[in-house]
C-alpha cells in the first residue's frame, strides 16, 4: 500500500514540477495561461481567441507534467515531424497514432486549413462596399503594411533567420489567420509566441494607435469631414470578389489560399442566392474553427519552447510592427490629405492595418473626439478591408521568397 502511495505521489504532476528537467517552465507557463485567461475574460482582449489560446496553453502544460502518455499535446512528436532526418518526417500517420486530442486538432493548423476557413468566415462578414466606392483606400491598405517589412528588417538585425524574420514581420499585418498561416509554413517553432503577440496587439489597438494618431496629425486634419460615399450596386459587389481573386492570385499565386478563401466567403455573402452557406460561414464554421485554432495554437506554448529570449524579441518586434504599420498608413493619409486639398481625413490611414473593424472604430473615435459631428467609420472601413488584402499580399510575397 505504501509503495502504491509512493508511486501515486511520484507520478503526479506536482512531483513532476520538481523532478522533470523543464518542470518549472511548465509551471511558469501555467501562470502565464492564467494571466491570459484573466486578460481575455476580465479585460475582454479578443476573448473569442484569447480564452481558447490560454486554455490550450494551460492544458498542454498541465498535461505535459503528467508524462508522455497523458499529454494532450506532444511537442516531441511535432519535433520529429519537422526533423528532416527523422523517419517520421512529415508523417501525419505517426501523429494520429500517438498524439493526444490537441495534436489531432493541431493538424488543421499545420496543414493551413484553419486560417483559410477563418478567411472564408471573414469574407462572409465583410462588406467591401466602402472600398469599391472609394478605391484609393487601397493605397492606405498598402501603406499600412510598412510595419511588416520594418519589423522583418529589424528581426534580421537581431539575428533571426529570413524565415523567422518574415513570420515575425507579418504580425504587423494585424491579421491573426495570416500570421498563423505564414508562421506555420516558414517558422512553425515560433507559432506560439507569434500568435499570442499578434492577437494581444490586435486587442490592444485602441491603446496603441490613438497616441500615434494624435502625434502624426494636427487638430485641423482630424476635424476634416469627408464627403458621403457613392452607392455601390449589387452587381459591382458580386463582380468584385471574382475580379480580385483572378487579378491578385494571377499576380502573386502564393496568395491563393488567403485571397481565394476571403473572396469566396464574400461571394457567398453577396450573391444573394447562397444565404444559407453565408450564414454557416459567418457563424457555425467561424465559431468551430476559432475554437480549434485557439486551443491548438495555445498548446504550442509549451514551457521548453516558449520561455526563451526569442519570445521577448518577438513581443517587442510585434509592437514595433504594429506601430510602424499605423505610422505608414497615417503618413500616406497625410499625403492624400494634401493632394486632395484637405478633403481626406488622414485618420482613416491608421485603419489600413487590417484588424477589422477595430482599427476603423479607432479612426472613428479619434475623429469624433476632434469633431463631434464627424462620422469616419464608413470611410475608414475602406482602408480597413484593403488592409486585409494588403496583408495577404505581403504574406504571399514573404511565402514566395522564403517558402
Amino acid at each position: 500500500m505504501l509503495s502504491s502511495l509512493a508511486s501515486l505521489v511520484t507520478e503526479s504532476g506536482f512531483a513532476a514540477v520538481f523532478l522533470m528537467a523543464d518542470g518549472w517552465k511548465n509551471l511558469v507557463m501555467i501562470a502565464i495561461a492564467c494571466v491570459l485567461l484573466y486578460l481575455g475574460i476580465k479585460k475582454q482582449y479578443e476573448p473569442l481567441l484569447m480564452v481558447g489560446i490560454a486554455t490550450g496553453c494551460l492544458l498542454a502544460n498541465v498535461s505535459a507534467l503528467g508524462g508522455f502518455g497523458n499529454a494532450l499535446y506532444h511537442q516531441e512528436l511535432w519535433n520529429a515531424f519537422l526533423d528532416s532526418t527523422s523517419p517520421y518526417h512529415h508523417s501525419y500517420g505517426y501523429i494520429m497514432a500517438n498524439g493526444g486530442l490537441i495534436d489531432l486538432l493541431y493538424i488543421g493548423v499545420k496543414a493551413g486549413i484553419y486560417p483559410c476557413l477563418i478567411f472564408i468566415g471573414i469574407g462572409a462578414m465583410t462588406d467591401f462596399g466602402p472600398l469599391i466606392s472609394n478605391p484609393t483606400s487601397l493605397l492606405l491598405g498598402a501603406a499600412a503594411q510598412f510595419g511588416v517589412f520594418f519589423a522583418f528588417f529589424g528581426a534580421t538585425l537581431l539575428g533571426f533567420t529570413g524565415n523567422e524574420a518574415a513570420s515575425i514581420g507579418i504580425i504587423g499585418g494585424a491579421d491573426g489567420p495570416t500570421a498563423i498561416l505564414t508562421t506555420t509554413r516558414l517558422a512553425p517553432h515560433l507559432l506560439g509566441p507569434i500568435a499570442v503577440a499578434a492577437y494581444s496587439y490586435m486587442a490592444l489597438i485602441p491603446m496603441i494607435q490613438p497616441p500615434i494618431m494624435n502625434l502624426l496629425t494636427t487638430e485641423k486634419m482630424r476635424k476634416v469631414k469627408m464627403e458621403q460615399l457613392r452607392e455601390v450596386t449589387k452587381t459591382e459587389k458580386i463582380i468584385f470578389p471574382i475580379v480580385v481573386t483572378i487579378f491578385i492570385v494571377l499576380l502573386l499565386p502564393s496568395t491563393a489560399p488567403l485571397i481565394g478563401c476571403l473572396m469566396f466567403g464574400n461571394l457567398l455573402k453577396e450573391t444573394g442566392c447562397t444565404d444559407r452557406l453565408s450564414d454557416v460561414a459567418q457563424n457555425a464554421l467561424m465559431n468551430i474553427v476559432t475554437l480549434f485554432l485557439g486551443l491548438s495554437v495555445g498548446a504550442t506554448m509549451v514551457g521548453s519552447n516558449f520561455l526563451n529570449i526569442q519570445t521577448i524579441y518577438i513581443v517587442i518586434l510585434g509592437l514595433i510592427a504594429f506601430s510602424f504599420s499605423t505610422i505608414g498608413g497615417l503618413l500616406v493619409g497625410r499625403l492624400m490629405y494634401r493632394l486632395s486639398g484637405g478633403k481626406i481625413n488622414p485618420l482613416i490611414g491608421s485603419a489600413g492595418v487590417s484588424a477589422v473593424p477595430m482599427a476603423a472604430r479607432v479612426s472613428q473615435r479619434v475623429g469624433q473626439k476632434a469633431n463631434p459631428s464627424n462620422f469616419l467609420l464608413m470611410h475608414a472601413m475602406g482602408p480597413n478591408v484593403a488592409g486585409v488584402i494588403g496583408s495577404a499580399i505581403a504574406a504571399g510575397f514573404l511565402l514566395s521568397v522564403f517558402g
Partner: protein
Amino acid sequence: MENGHLGIGAAFVDALLGYLVVFIGLILLMCVVIAMGKIMVASTKKAAATVKMTAPAPAAAPAPAAPKKLAPGSAGEVKLYDTDPRDAAMIMAIVADKLGKPLNELRFKSIKEVK
C-alpha cells in the same frame, strides 16, 4: 545568406521589394476597381437612357399619384440595410442628441449595419 540568415543588405532589399510589391499590387487593383466602377456607372446610365427612349408614350397622362404624406419637417425616407426600424430610430435619436440638433433638421440617407 548563411544558414538562412540574411545579411543587412539582402534584408533591406527584400523589405523594400516586399513593400513595393504590396504597393504595386494594390495600385493595379485600384485601377481595376476604378475601371470596373466607371463601366458599371456608364452601363447603368446607358440602360436608364435606353429605357427612357424606348418607353412608349403614354396614351393619356396618368393622374399624378397623390404625394406621400411626410411627417412635418421630414426630408424623405431612410434606406435601411440589415437594420431594424426600431434600431434605426434609436440611432437617429442618438445622433441628433449627440449633435445637439433637432431630428427634423438632419437628413439621414441610409443606415447600414457594419458587421
